[in-house]
């Protein structure tokens, strides 16, 4: 069986301007959404606070829970249904931490049992103090930063087979980060700075494949963050894990296409670059789609059957894999073409 015939020939490169517009619009929407929502919506891992998961043995209305909890002065910020509707599970969020966590879960149990006249089970309590939240936020950003750094160094060495240059890259990057640190800038600024330095370095060192791959990467992560922001989903530790995995995984498709481009460049060195790019994308199209498809299969089962705690993680991964597949065809390869135009002028 074969979905994608070997002789398939879609002119992807000709459609690159449409793709650029689509990508630009999506990134713009991400930025607008982040501005409207005042940055990413942090879950309690990063913002601090208390989260309590409760389960009733019979259908219960959110309004009843809210009025029940209203009698308690613990700064309840939201009550929300959680998981499958048949589980009668809810998430209660409170702003405070530490001081109120003492026996807050016990109180909640008592209050709710009297308010809803049913059995209540406290299934999960998570309390994160503001200091720990700040630490975790810093750690998460550092993890993203280092993942990007190492992957950048690896692909700049591997894609171009210029490990010397990659060493220079690494050295310059470390130096740039060190200088930035001296000014005690916040980590998001540090990351933005490091990425900027990376792209400028790629430009001057003429590492075009690495440039394409990293731009595609930033594209994927940005759009995933944007969709999270639009849907009002929270950033938690597992979501950071998902973003990091996307960074690693979305490169797979790009690597497949780029390897083929290099192979074809050797075979058909007389042909125009846009022809070779198109040929390579078409030849590897089956792989690109199949590898993403098998991963999507398990992610969708995880999304459906995995339960509430893992729901958002699966969502982030699904978005990341879809966007990653799109970007390896429509973002990474056309950048090579843009590069060639630069050299000609």
């Amino acid at each position, binding site marked *: 069986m074969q979905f994608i015939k070997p002789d398939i020939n879609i002119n992807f490169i000709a459609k690159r301007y449409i793709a650029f517009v689509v990508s630009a619009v999506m990134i713009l929407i991400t930025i607008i959404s982040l501005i409207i929502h005042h940055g990413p919506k942090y879950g309690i891992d990063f913002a601090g606070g208390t989260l309590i998961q409760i389960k009733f043995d019979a259908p219960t209305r959110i309004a009843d829970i809210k009025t029940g909890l209203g009698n308690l002065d613990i700064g309840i910020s939201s009550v929300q249904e959680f998981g499958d509707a048949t589980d009668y599970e809810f998430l209660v969020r409170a702003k405070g931490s530490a001081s109120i966590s003492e026996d807050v879960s016990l109180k909640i149990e008592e209050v709710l049992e009297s308010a809803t006249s049913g059995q209540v089970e406290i299934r999960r309590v998570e*309390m*994160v103090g503001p200091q720990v939240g700040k630490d975790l936020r810093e750690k998460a950003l550092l993890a993203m930063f280092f993942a990007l750094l190492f992957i950048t160094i690896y692909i700049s060495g591997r894609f171009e087979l210029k490990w010397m240059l990659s060493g220079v890259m690494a050295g310059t990057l470390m130096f740039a980060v060190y200088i930035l640190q001296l000014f005690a800038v916040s980590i998001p600024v540090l990351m933005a700075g490091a990425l900027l330095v990376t792209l400028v370095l790629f430009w001057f060192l003429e590492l075009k494949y690495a440039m394409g791959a990293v731009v595609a990467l930033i594209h994927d992560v940005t759009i995933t963050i944007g969709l999270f922001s639009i849907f009002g989903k929270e950033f938690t530790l597992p979501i950071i894990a998902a973003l990091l995995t996307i960074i690693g995984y979305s490169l797979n498709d790009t690597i497949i296409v780029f390897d083929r481009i290099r192979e074809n460049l050797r075979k058909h060195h007389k042909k125009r670059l846009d022809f070779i790019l198109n040929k390579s994308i078409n030849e590897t199209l089956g792989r690109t789609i199949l590898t993403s498809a098998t*991963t999507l299969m398990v992610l969708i089962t995880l999304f459906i059957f995995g339960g509430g705690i893992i729901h958002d993680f699966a969502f982030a991964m699904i978005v990341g894999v879809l966007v990653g597949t799109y970007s390896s065809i429509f973002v990474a390869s056309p950048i090579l073409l843009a590069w060639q135009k630069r050299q000609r002028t």
Partner: protein
Amino acid sequence: MKKLSWRPVAVLIVILTAIVYVLPSVWPGVWPHKKINLGLDLQGGMHLVLEVDTNKAVEDAIERIAQELRSRLRKERVRVLALDRVHGTQISTRVVGKASIDQFYKTLDTDFKEMRILSESESDETLTVVINLPDQEAEQIKKLATDQALETIRNRIDQFGVSEPDIRNQGKNRILIQLPGIKDTKRAKNLIGRTALLEFKLLDETNDIGAALQGNVPPESEILYEDSQDPTTNRTTKTPYLVKKRTLLTGAQLVDARVQIDSQYNDPYVSIEFDKKGGRIFERITEQNVKKRLAIVLDDKVYSAPVIQEKISGGSARITGQFTTEQARDLAIALRAGALPAPVNILEERTVGPSLGADSIRKGLMSMCVGGILVMLFMIIYYKGSGIIADLALMLNIVIIAGGLAAFQATLTLPGIAGIILTIGMAVDANVLIFERIREEMNLGKTPRAAVDAGYSRATLTILDANVTTLIAALVLFQFGTGPVKGFAVTLSLGVLASLFTALVLSRLIFDYLLINRKIKSVSI
């Protein structure tokens, strides 16, 4: 002529090792190796991060030094106008008179050598000096406080009876505690978090408590309260006591603390036993203060303030109060384990009930089975015979991940299960790449064997690259992640390595066996 190549040997060793490690988890007791560790989110339990208030430890040390300095100067007849602890960790003194000043410096140089002079100024024969502890000493006290707190908490938890607790330092002054399977979380938190500083202090009976409550507290005394609850109305009342600041005896001199039941009222109380030195001190206190009231203070709360009727020798005392048997038991544990050198605050708490953990396992396994079956069916439909080889590789992949988890004693968490599920989807990717390449080569007219050869050799580098990037992300996550997320990093890394092995070594071996030994003429792909 067949050569014994390394491939079959390597495959056999890896598979057998994995099975050896996995078996105890599937079939407990088959041989003595531990089962796969389940994280707190899967088996239920409590995760706590505490912060030791080390600044308080330094302040306490300074306070002790200030008291010592005060009594020493009094003994040397130095005229001291003021001697106070200021800004938390500094001692400020004012000394008057030439002779006094000389004697002050002499005392400071001989008996308080470790103190650092921050500032000194002299005018009209009045010397004002501010001293504190050098930073190095202060750091030492902080470190000691954290270590001691860790040791004390470990003792308490051991006596509380939790199976396989994990208690360790985290950073400079934090303590990470993991208590799997614990149910009464509130009680555990109370036991761990209480300072349990037991002090015996005399009541200040010469001054009026009423005046003190108006804000007129004598400098040598302080107001402490006794909480008592009316059993019928459930109302708490606070009774104030005017207590002398000086501590006569602390719980540090304890050798034992036990729960006893009062035979008369059937109330539980905690009987304590002092060591030899403590017993002597207690005897002297009671001897010198007959008919006075002695307050038993625990964590700055008065538990009782009985009148000393006569000299008590033998070195034992009792703490009464409104205890339930459980509370008395926990208090006894805390006293036996000793007081925390400084108060602790809960920074992070995550509790998962056992039923939620079981639910998570069920849902995780469910998604794993459904996802796995979908992928395997897809591979068979799409690649026919070769799909079966890929599926075989996939199944072994999962066995290897499980074996790796057991071998490294890593912890399986809910995100960890998600990592395994993700690996199922990603592991076949390598086979897809190889199979697509083989198809391509066969379309070019190559023989099956040549096509398989070319397919593997051309796809290998691409597969390595694609997996290295994922591995980099996973390793970074392992370095920075905590708890459940770390579990994800572990299974993802194991999964990437296992899928490299199964795709590049194992499935290749099967192809070679079929093509060379079985001399199969066509590849079902």
